């Protein structure tokens, strides 16, 4: 025996280490570095499956009934083949739905049913509580075995002090310890995601410890005390030839049917025991980990089972065939052979197996109890307005302790009786009852709430009757006669031979009947009853979780919708303010928030779903749904389908027939060429009749009054809404809409933030209205308004789009009318314009001069009637040619006259002034005073080509550098020279440069109208494109080249006319 203090010390140190690891993992998570997010930890944590029941019990089973301990591990190995599909699907759904437990999963799938959640919780607690008792028993028993060795009855720690009350034994202290651990790492704070990294880290370490401990003692017994596997088997066969059944199957204790049953229930248990679901699904941090766990977890189980048979047989050999202590061979063999430290390691391993199970199970069950049993009551007694987050976390802590302590009470009540040894399998069959509802949830859309409820309840009733009742009867709690004679003497209802089905072991018998009723009721009810809309929605979300999401068919809105702040406050009540504001800021992220700090109306239902999901992460799906529904109904809000203004013949949402026909009619009205007033009246008629608005109004801006003045109105007469002017101020919706140039929609006039508008609108009984700006080239010139007394929420996004495009059509009509007016005005100025135009056309050369060895072409495309561009070529003689291109700022008669002045000056002086630079200098001096007086300036490029020498001399006054295409070596050059724009300073010096031209070279002079031609939204045409064009088409003759460039420019801008004058001169050598 080992002194009590050393066992206590080692155990305490181990517990402190676990606390340390768990604490570290939690800290790391808070710092954003998860230590558990790796596939090794995940695989190890799954081994929480392996409890002390199997840690010690496998050996006991192997020593008494043979190989039938194996199916408990073979089943999970087999089901692991399906994990990539089944488990991954469960994980994906749980992440998307923020699911926190298996009860939550089932309740959420079947329409977020609170009742179903409660049923699953009650059954889970009933089925698992005894299992916890078993763990406590194992730890307490081995502790006592280790310290007292022979004195089993009195707990060793019991002797600590006689002043302790009677129930304080080893198991009680262990229970307190494990409960505390569960509280510390399962319920330190309410988490929006319900994940416990510290707990997982501790469980993973424990899994490692129990594996190492088991392997250590297995190796010691097999190779230390004996001479390997063969030695043990040979000696056993020689000593106990009659027990050869221990290495065989289909024995009297373990027939094939039972073998199959055990395989099946362990498959189900490893998936659906609450703790397994918690570790595998809820605590999963990455779906990829599943792939690794699919072989690592079976490999773990294989290693753990490798020595079970040798240890069992060795125990029998060492104990002379005595099987009464077989459950604890693992501990007693090293103890009796004097290897106390090894025994201590085994004890720590067994402690790990129990502790891991109890901690995870209690946290998982406590979550379920809180969410599905306590929460509905809490909501029923409506602790409205209170901050519940503290209360909730405390209830959860209490629930963890309660689960563990209930396990303890169960342990005390049942004691050493028959019931305890079978508890493990009883729990497995309980977990199997979840299987039909779970698989239905994953793969069968017709499965519905009634089916799941009926199946679960019937399954559990049969489970209770065929397993627990016999156990209780044998423990003496019930009259044992029920087993032989049935209840009230009804032979047919004997719990172990229900309906006369005999010849099976109790496990197979119970599994068969419970699943028969479970699956039967599940199928029948699901097929016979129809699912509610919410169930159908959830069914799709679960079964089709891997399908790409489809757009919701119908749209909903919330009347009297809460604001963002109110949603945050609601969440804060349950998960604490900090968590709530964190969650909301993540959600809002890049969503658009309007001026009122609120979301668009159609985003509110999304926010509601988000709030529900966040709450679900903390309290479960069903309570979250109830919370939200209660909350909304308390403030009089309702979810309602959006009134479909387009009726039922909608072809497709974006192009409904009505929408098209209305737009078509409006376009016809606009293009009819009628008077503006008639067009406006027609469009309003159309709007009024098609959509049954009570009032439609068009207002236009009167610039002198700075007010929106009514131009047309249809529908009810309302002095305020339909006939009065509106000032341009943000106090009214219409004013604000005009100033911000944005369509404004109020779908529920109960919620308005502009008191001035609110009063008028309510007086007229308007329930929803909209204003759309009428724009010309993007600038608002008026407003189109529609008012409805009927339905709220009439302005769907689609309708608002139609409404806005109607407003744009009106804009076009307005512009057309305005243009006609302008045309009349223009006639007044026609004479002046004609003069200016004459001047300009007179400036441009009417023919190209005849110079040997070059070809020439030039063009000027004016943007308006009078251009500001000018070009010219002056042939001085047969071998000298001057080329000029210039651009004057401004496009009026004055600019044209100045250009004429410049031309006159140049033509007059060109023969006297010598070089290019002095001509430019002269022009600047001559024009300076006129230009500065008119606040105009000119850019100019002047070149002189000496045909004989092939030399081009040039100067520039800030003009766009012309492009010169060199045939050899085939590059484009820019001809730039220093020089200030004309009209800036009276005296300017110009740089003169020269360049030698060769045959095939092409010179292109142009104005900025070419390079600054703009494609809407895509920037300028640019010099680079121009150079590219020049290069590609350098072989064309000058006229063709100009035509090509103009063509490309028109393609680029997408319009025939240009915004600025476009001028080009092309000279080609040879």
């Amino acid at each position, binding site marked *: 025996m080992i002194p009590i203090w050393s066992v206590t010390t080692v155990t305490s140190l181990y517990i402190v280490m676990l606390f340390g690891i768990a604490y570290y993992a939690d800290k790391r998570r808070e710092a954003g570095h998860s230590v558990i997010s790796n596939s090794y930890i995940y695989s190890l944590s799954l081994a929480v499956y392996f409890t002390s029941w199997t840690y010690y019990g496998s050996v006991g089973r192997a020593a008494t009934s043979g*190989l039938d301990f*194996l*199916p408990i591990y*073979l089943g999970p*190995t*087999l*089901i*692991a*083949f*399906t994990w*990539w*599909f089944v488990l991954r699907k469960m994980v994906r759904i749980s992440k998307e739905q923020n699911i926190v437990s298996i009860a939550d999963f089932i309740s959420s799938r079947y329409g977020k049913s609170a009742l179903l959640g409660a049923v699953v919780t009650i059954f889970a607690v009933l089925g698992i509580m005894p299992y916890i008792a078993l763990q406590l028993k194992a730890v307490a028993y081995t502790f006592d075995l280790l310290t007292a060795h022979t004195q089993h009855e009195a707990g060793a720690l019991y002797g600590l002090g006689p002043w302790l009350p009677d129930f304080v034994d080893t198991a009680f202290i262990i229970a307190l310890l494990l409960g505390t651990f569960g509280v510390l790492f399962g319920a330190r704070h309410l988490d929006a995601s319900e994940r416990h990294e510290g707990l997982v880290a501790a469980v993973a370490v424990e899994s490692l410890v129990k594996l190492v401990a088991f392997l250590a003692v297995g190796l010691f017994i097999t190779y230390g005390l004996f001479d390997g*596997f*063969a*030695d043990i*088997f*040979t000696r056993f*066969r020689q000593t106990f030839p009659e027990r*050869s059944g221990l*290495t*065989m*199957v*289909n024995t009297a204790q373990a027939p*094939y049917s039972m*073998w*199959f049953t055990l*395989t099946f229930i362990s498959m189900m248990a490893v998936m659906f025991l609450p703790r397994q679901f918690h570790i595998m699904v809820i605590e999963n941090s990455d779906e990829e980990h599943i*792939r*690794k766990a*699919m*072989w690592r977890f*079976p*490999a773990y189980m*294989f290693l753990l089972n*490798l020595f079970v*048979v040798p240890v069992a047989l060795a125990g029998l050999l060492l104990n002379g065939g005595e099987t009464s202590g077989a459950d604890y061979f693992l501990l007693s063999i090293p103890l009796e052979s004097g290897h106390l430290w090894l025994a201590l390691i085994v004890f720590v391993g067994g402690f790990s197996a129990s502790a891991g199970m109890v901690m995870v199970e209690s946290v998982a069950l406590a979550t379920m109890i809180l969410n599905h049993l306590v929460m509905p009551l809490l909501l029923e007694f409506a602790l409205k307005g209170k901050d519940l987050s503290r209360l909730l976390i405390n209830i959860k802590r209490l629930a963890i302790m309660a689960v563990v302590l209930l396990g303890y009470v169960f342990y005390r009540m049942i004691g050493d009786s028959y019931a305890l040894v079978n508890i493990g399998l009883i729990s497995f069959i309980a977990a199997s009852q979840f299987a039909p509802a779970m698989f239905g949830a994953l793969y069968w859309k017709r499965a519905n709430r009634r089916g799941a409820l009926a199946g679960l309840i019937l399954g559990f009733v049969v489970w209770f009757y065929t397993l627990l009742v016999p156990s209780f009867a044998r423990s003496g709690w019930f009259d044992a006669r029920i087993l032989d004679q049935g209840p009230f003497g009804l032979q047919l209802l004997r719990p172990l031979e229900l309906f006369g089905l005999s010849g099976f072991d109790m496990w197979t018998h119970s599994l068969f009947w419970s699943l028969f009723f479970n699956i039967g009721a599940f199928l029948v009810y699901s097929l016979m009853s129809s699912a509610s809309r919410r169930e159908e929605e959830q069914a799709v979300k679960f079964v089709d979780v891997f399908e790409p999401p489809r757009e919701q068919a119908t749209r909903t809105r919330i009347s009297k919708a809460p604001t963002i702040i109110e949603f945050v406050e609601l969440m804060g009540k349950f998960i604490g303010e900090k968590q709530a504001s964190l969650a909301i800021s993540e959600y809002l992220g890049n969503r658009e928030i309007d001026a009122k700090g609120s979301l668009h109306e159609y985003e509110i239902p999304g926010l509601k779903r988000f709030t529900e999901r966040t709450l679900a992460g903390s309290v479960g799906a069903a309570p979250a749904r109830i919370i939200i529904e209660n909350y909304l109904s308390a403030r009089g809000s309702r979810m309602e389908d959006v009134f479909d203004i387009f009726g039922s013949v909608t072809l497709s949402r974006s192009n409904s027939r009505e929408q098209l026909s209305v737009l078509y009619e409006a376009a016809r009205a606009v293009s009819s060429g009628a008077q503006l007033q008639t067009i406006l009246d027609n469009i309003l008629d159309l709007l009024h009749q098609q959509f049954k608005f009570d009032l439609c109004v068009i207002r236009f801006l009167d610039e002198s009054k700075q007010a929106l003045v009514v131009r047309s109105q249809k529908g009810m007469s309302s002095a305020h809404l339909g006939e009065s002017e509106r000032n341009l101020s943000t106090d009214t919706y219409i004013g604000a809409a005009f100033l911000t140039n944005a369509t404004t929609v109020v779908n529920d006039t109960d919620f308005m933030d502009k008191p001035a508008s609110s009063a008028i609108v309510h007086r007229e009984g308007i329930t929803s209205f909209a204003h759309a700006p009428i724009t010309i080239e993007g600038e608002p010139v008026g407003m189109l308004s529609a008012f409805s007394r009927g339905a709220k929420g009439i302005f769907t996004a689609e309708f608002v789009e139609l409404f806005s495009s109607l407003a744009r059509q009106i804009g076009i009509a307005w512009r057309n009318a305005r243009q006609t007016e302008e045309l009349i005005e223009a006639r007044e100025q026609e004479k002046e314009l004609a003069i200016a135009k004459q001047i300009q056309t007179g400036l441009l050369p009417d023919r190209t001069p005849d110079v040997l060895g070059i070809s020439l072409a030039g063009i000027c495309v004016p943007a308006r009637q009078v251009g500001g561009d000018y070009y010219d070529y002056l042939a001085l003689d047969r071998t000298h040619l001057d080329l000029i291109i210039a651009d004057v700022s401004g496009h009026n008669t004055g600019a044209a006259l100045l250009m004429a002045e410049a031309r006159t000056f140049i033509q007059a002086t060109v023969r006297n002034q010598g070089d290019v630079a002095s001509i430019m200098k002269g022009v600047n001096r001559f024009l300076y005073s006129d230009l500065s007086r008119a606040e105009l300036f000119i850019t100019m490029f002047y070149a002189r080509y000496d045909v004989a020498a092939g030399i081009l001399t040039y100067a520039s006054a800030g003009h766009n550098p012309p492009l010169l295409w060199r045939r050899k070596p085939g590059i484009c050059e820019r001809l730039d020279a220093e020089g200030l724009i004309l009209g800036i300073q009276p005296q300017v010096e110009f740089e003169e440069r020269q360049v030698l031209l060769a045959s095939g070279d092409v010179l292109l002079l142009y104005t900025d109208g070419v390079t600054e031609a703009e494609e809407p939204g895509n920037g300028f045409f640019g010099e680079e494109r121009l150079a590219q064009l020049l290069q590609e088409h350098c072989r064309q003759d000058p006229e063709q080249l100009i035509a090509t460039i103009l063509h490309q420019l028109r393609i680029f801008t997408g319009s025939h006319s240009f915004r600025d004058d476009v001028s080009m001169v092309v000279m080609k050598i040879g």
Partner: protein
Amino acid sequence: MKRPDSQQLREAWLLFFILGIVMLNFPFLEIFNKTSTILGIPVLFLYFFVGWPSSILVIFLFCYWIEREDSGSGDGGGPT
């Protein structure tokens, strides 16, 4: 390179799963359910403790293979 689609994978896993259930149940087990031994170790024990790691190896190889398919879309090789 050809990628196994999800349906194919599912069917492969299902095949392994069913094969496993068949091989670990009646009547398959009956083949090895004998008292005879090989190297002093009972045949059935050997069957389990050789068959089990073999099935784990199959899962391992299969997982390894899928993972390579998923990540190595550019390498052109692969057992397709």
